[in-house]
Each structure stands twice: as structure tokens, then as C-alpha cells.
């Protein structure tokens, strides 16, 4: 459905050293450096997938989304989405996709949301019945009924974002690109947005590609993640693969009655220790969690014990470190 191969894009960025003299100098001679935003990006996405596209700031996520939605023209590489090359057949192609840029707005500021929706209906030539059906579904799942008649400038960020997402789906696109859809949203709105993305993916078989910095978005939505850094794909796989590869470490926290000396269990690392509480990092490749627990219970009078996986955030930070991005 989506085939991307060898995509490259570089930008020219003007550079100058600080200071007045340098500013004067740059009037006559400007120095540019080339930033390689994307270097040979390739991946495929099948219909009905939800793909989380992650990476640190400036990794090239948004650039990829912009190329895939036909806004930017890459320097090199091929991209075949639904049989179109986005930047070549832009007008025909964009009918089939919906895009949400979390940091930008597509709604008309001064008029009620529903007016913007009606405008989109005419722009996308949506038939009356399709429009009604879609609007009904969107109103229901995104809980828009109370805000449709409010001018956009009076909406909160969360309300506006729900409307933005609704606006991108009025024309029943086959693919939805979400560029940071949950940025700046509170917990309730985030969950509403996630729930909605899941619903349309399951019910309407919409393929979703989303970029985010919020790993709980990824955990809630994406089975597959593509990690990008410095313009290159570093990892493309399922979330569980990632976890089993990098998330083998577990943390065991034990509370017990006072002891005098810390106990030592092989293949574990003590993260913190007091005479009533102990935190151990366990590498499950070397020792089973159950073995550690057995060892603990034999040596200590346990009150409480918890086993935690490492939070996905930390795994990602480690990944960034490992790839030096």
C-alpha cells in the first residue's frame, strides 16, 4: 500500500557566526551548510496497519510525513502510495489521504467548526449522504456535538484537536497521517484521541502513520514502530520485538523487615538499598525473575514485592544513546 524506497532530502541552511562584524560579512558572502534531513529511507506499510514513527526532534519524522503527503519534493528516491507518487499527482493523490499536523490548524479561526466542515465537504466533493454518515460517526466517537457550532477561536486545545482530526477524516481517506496529534493535550483528551484512532483503524480499515514523542501513544496504538534518527531508519519492527531486545531488564522492589547487611544475588544489580527496602535490576537473559524472587524470599522476611518492566521511555532513551542520536 505504501512503498517508500531510497528517499533522501537535504536542506540548505544559512550559517553565520555571532557578532555584528559577522553579520556585516554575511551581507556579501553567505555560508550555507547542507543538512541531510533524510538519507536513504525505505519501508513498506500494509493496509490496516498502525505504524508509530518515532525519533528525537529533528530526526526527519515530519519531513517524511510531508513528503508522503505530497507537500515536499524529495531530492532522490521513490514513493508509491496507492499507486500514486505523492508529489507528482498531488491533486489526485491527496483525495485519498487525511493529514493532521498537530502544530498547525486547518480550521477557520473566526467561524463555527461546522462551517469549516462544510467547506471541506465542497473541497473534497463529498456527497451529501457520505458527509452526513461521516459527520455522525465523527461527532459520536470524537464527542463533537457540543462544540460543532462554536467558533474555533473559543475552543480549548483539546477540543480543537478533536475537530482537527475530525476534519481530516470527513472525506473517508484510506490513509491517515498524524504528525504529533497529541501534542499539548491533557490525559483525557489524549485517551479520547487514541481511542478514536483505534476505532477508525478497526472499523474503517484506515491505515495510520503517526509520529509522536509520547511513548504511551505508541504503546496504546502501534504494533509496529519505525525508529528514525539523523535521517536514517534505525529500527523497524514490532513493539514487543523492541521490548524483548532492549527491555530485558526488570526492576524488582522488595520491602522487608529490617536486616543488617545487604544480600547479594548473582546476575543482579542493586539500584538502591536501605535496611527496609531494596531495588534490584535483573537482566532476564542471565537469570529468571522467579529465581531472584526465590532467593529473596529465602533470605528475607518479605512484606511486599513488585516487578516492573522498564518504562518504554527509558528503552527509547537507551536506543537513542546506542545509535548516538
Amino acid at each position, binding site marked *: 500500500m505504501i512503498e517508500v524506497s531510497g528517499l533522501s532530502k537535504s*536542506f540548505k541552511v544559512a550559517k553565520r557566526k555571532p557578532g555584528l562584524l559577522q553579520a556585516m560579512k554575511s551581507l556579501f558572502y553567505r555560508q550555507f551548510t547542507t543538512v541531510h534531513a533524510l538519507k536513504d529511507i525505505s519501508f513498506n506499510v500494509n493496509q490496516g496497519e498502525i505504524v508509530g514513527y518515532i525519533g528525537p526532534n529533528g530526526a526527519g519524522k*515530519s519531513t517524511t510525513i*510531508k513528503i508522503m*503527503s*505530497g*507537500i*515536499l*519534493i524529495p531530492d532522490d528516491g521513490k514513493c508509491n502510495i496507492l499507486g500514486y507518487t505523492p508529489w507528482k499527482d*498531488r*491533486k*489526485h493523490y*491527496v*483525495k485519498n*489521504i487525511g*493529514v493532521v*499536523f*498537530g*502544530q*498547525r*490548524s*486547518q480550521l*477557520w*479561526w*473566526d*467561524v463555527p467548526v461546522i*462551517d469549516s466542515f*462544510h*467547506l471541506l465537504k*465542497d*473541497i*473534497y*466533493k463529498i456527497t451529501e449522504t457520505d458527509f452526513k454518515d461521516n459527520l455522525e460517526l465523527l461527532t459520536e466517537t470524537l464527542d463533537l456535538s457540543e462544540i460543532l457550532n462554536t467558533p474555533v477561536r473559543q475552543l480549548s486545545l483539546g477540543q480543537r484537536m478533536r475537530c482537527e482530526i475530525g476534519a481530516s477524516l470527513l472525506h473517508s481517506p484510506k490513509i491517515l497521517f498524524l*504528525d*504529533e496529534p497529541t501534542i499539548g493535550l491533557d490525559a483525557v483528551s489524549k485517551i479520547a484521541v487514541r481511542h478514536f484512532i483505534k476505532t477508525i483503524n478497526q472499523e474503517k480499515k484506515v491505515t495510520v502513520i503517526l509520529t509522536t514523542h509520547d511513548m504511551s501513544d505508541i504503546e496504546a496504538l502501534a504494533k509496529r514502530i519505525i525508529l528514525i534518527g539523523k535521517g536514517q531508519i534505525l529500527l523497524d519492527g514490532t513493539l514487543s520485538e523492541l521490548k524483548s531486545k532492549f527491555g530485558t531488564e526488570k526492576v524488582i522492589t522488595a520491602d522487608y523487615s529490617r536486616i543488617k547487611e545487604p544480600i547479594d544475588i548473582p546476575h543482579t544489580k542493586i539500584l538502591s538499598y536501605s535496611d527496609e527496602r531494596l531495588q534490584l535490576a535483573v537482566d532476564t537473559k542471565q537469570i529468571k525473575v522467579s529465581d531472584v524472587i526465590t532467593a529473596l524470599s529465602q533470605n528475607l522476611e518479605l512484606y511486599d514485592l513488585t516487578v516492573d518492566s522498564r518504562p518504554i521511555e527509558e528503552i527509547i532513551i537507551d536506543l537513542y544513546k546506542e545509535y548516538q542520536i
Partner: protein
Amino acid sequence: MSAYISLFKMRLMQGLQYQVAAFAGVLTQFFWGFMYIMIYQAFYQSTTNVQPISLHQLIVVVWLQQSFLALIMLWFRDNEIISLILKGDIAYELCRPADLYGFWYSRLIAQRLSSALLRFVPILLVASLLPYPYRFSLPDNVITFLLFLITLFLGLIIVVAISMLIYISMFYTLSGVGSLLIFGVLGEFLSGLIIPVPLMPHSLKIIVYLLPFRYCSDLPFRIYAGNIGYHEAILSIFAQIFWIILLFLIGKLWIKKALKRVVIQGG
């Protein structure tokens, strides 16, 4: 096509909301109108030569200029389009299955119309109640009036086509000020909005007639005032059509080129 029409309607609706701004505009326009009229009056009183346009015709032209300001001024701008370009929200506009030129064109024409609709009636109404020679009067006959309407409408199409070029240039300059100021000042002068075209020296007149600017305001208003005859009026309509085609072509080609190099930065 329906997309452009509903965009037009939407912008019109939005523009008609700003009634207080329109009221303030009407007052300003009266001030300017009187100021111009007094200057011309002083000028006509101090000369004994016969001028190529009579004072009363000139006063009618001044009132028309003031009431249809929104239709003829190049500095009249749509800040939303400017911020779309400068801030990058144009990303959304590019995700639409529509032609950006047509999109913005209908938006701009609607904005000008809504603004003019709110202003021209009160100005012309009050101006036609003023004592002679300040009075605004009706044209001599129906044909003159029809020619005025046609040329004013074609002139509006030209103005918007020129201002499209201003917006496209912002893709390159990334500033909303430069080209707007240059086009605004030059356009105003070359349209005869500062010195009326009939009062310009001959050599300057030749230049002004070769450029599109005067076809937006000078032509329709002088037709109305009776300063331009039928024959010249009809020939000028052809000139207007020529400019419309040329400006559309330039604009369409240029926007295509500009969009190829557009970079939407950040986020």
C-alpha cells in the same frame, strides 16, 4: 468549481462580520475624500487653463475612489494568507485536492467584495447629499453606467491577479512587508490615485497607459464621470481582458515554480 464558490462564500461571510471596522473605514474615507477635493479645488482655482478633466468630474472620481477603496487598492491585504505562507500552515492548503491559485483567488476577491459592500453605500449616499461642487452625482445615462460596472468588475479581477503576484513573491522574500509596500506605492501612483491620470504630464501618461494598474480604478471611474467616451471605453475593455489573461498566466506559472521550492520548516 463549487469548492471555490463555497470558499468565496465563507470568506464573504467572515468579512461581513467586521461592521465596526467598516464604520471606522467610512469615516476615514470621508476625511480623505474631502482632503483630496479641497486640494483639487485650490488647484483648479489657481489656474486659468482648461484642464483635461473638469473639477466636478474629478470630484465624482474621488468619491468613487473612496467608496470602492477595497476593490482597487493593492495594499489591501489578507493577513491570513500572509501568515499561511510565513508560518507554514500552507501545509494544509497543499493537502487539498484543489488548485492553490484558484483557492486564494476566490478568497481574495471575496475579502475585497465583503469589505467594499459594507462601505460603498453609506459613502456614496452621503456624498450625493452634499452641496455642489462636493456632490456625487449619477452618470449621464444607462450605457455609461453599464460600462462602468463592466470595467469595474474586470478591474477587480486585475487587482486580485496582481495581488496574487504579491503573495507568491512572499514565498521568496518570506516577509509580508517588502513586496506589499513596493507594489502598493507604485500601484497607487500608476493607477492615478495620487495624481489623477488626466492631469499627468504626457510622457508619464504613456507609461501609465502601458501598465495594468490604471485599468482597475482610473478607467471605470472616469467612464462613470463622463471623462472617457464609449469608443475608448470599449477598446479599454479589450485591454483589460488582455491583462487578465497575461496576469493569470504569469501567476499560475510562478506559483507552480514557487511551490516546487517551498520548504515547510519545523514541527
